[in-house]
């Protein structure tokens, strides 16, 4: 029962933070709601015994990405009214989101999943590291190249001046 209580709190925080992110009328509040969701998802990772991913989630998402988003909000200050944060197509978006959630929940809840119990113990860091650097070495290096290219691209795009 304690497990269900923890899961309920984390799932509730995840969904509530997400709802706050997409409905908040203040952009900075939206970023802080996003932080709530990201931390709660890190808690869900912990419940799934993925400690390393929970750490990465808090450090990278909770730290770096939210910080960068807040900086972008600061640099692109909007002087409009608060009511202009939503599109005119908002009713259609509600319909599309409800249709998606209905479809996904229907499929998830009606499927007979082959396994109902989580297997294995906590994932050890040594086994994880060995798998990442042996079996997944080439994708791992490619990911670093992707990050490097994105970094250089971001610097080039946002550089002041350029061709006019």
């Amino acid at each position: 029962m304690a497990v269900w209580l923890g899961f309920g709190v984390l799932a509730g925080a995840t969904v509530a933070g997400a709802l706050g992110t997409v409905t908040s009328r203040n952009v900075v509040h939206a970023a802080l709601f996003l932080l709530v969701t990201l931390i709660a998802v890190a808690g869900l990772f912990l419940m799934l015994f993925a400690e390393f991913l929970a750490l990465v989630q808090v450090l990278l998402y909770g730290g770096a990405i939210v910080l960068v988003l807040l900086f972008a909000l600061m640099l692109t200050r909007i002087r409009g009214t608060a009511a202009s944060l939503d599109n005119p197509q908002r009713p259609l978006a509600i319909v599309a989101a409800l249709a998606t959630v209905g479809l996904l929940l229907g499929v998830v809840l009606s499927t007979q999943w082959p396994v109902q119990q989580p297997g294995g113990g906590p994932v050890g860091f040594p086994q994880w590291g060995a798998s990442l650097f042996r079996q997944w070495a080439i994708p791992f290096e490619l990911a670093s190249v992707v990050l490097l290219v994105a970094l250089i691209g971001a610097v080039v795009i946002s550089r002041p001046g350029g061709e006019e």
Partner: protein
Amino acid sequence: MIPVSAYLAVSALLFSIGMYGVLARRNAVLILMSIELMLNAVNINLVAFSRYLAPGEFTGLVFAVFVITVAAAEVGLALAIIIRLYRNRATVNVDEIDLLKW
């Protein structure tokens, strides 16, 4: 114990909320935040399946790490583009950014 479908249900809710945000929001930075919500939903799915269906392997966890990496790269690039747009057009409102629309 918690069945795998509970995690999948949370993930489905999170994904749909993110999709609503992408479709309904007008500010480009808020759209980016909604995309982050959708990517997180995908990560929950990957980790849950890795835990329940293949506990001895790391495939789902490794994929989640790659998703986080790509998300970081995407945020960096997208924010550079948004700041560039803001400098050129003085807006981040996606309704007004219609240079490629005919």
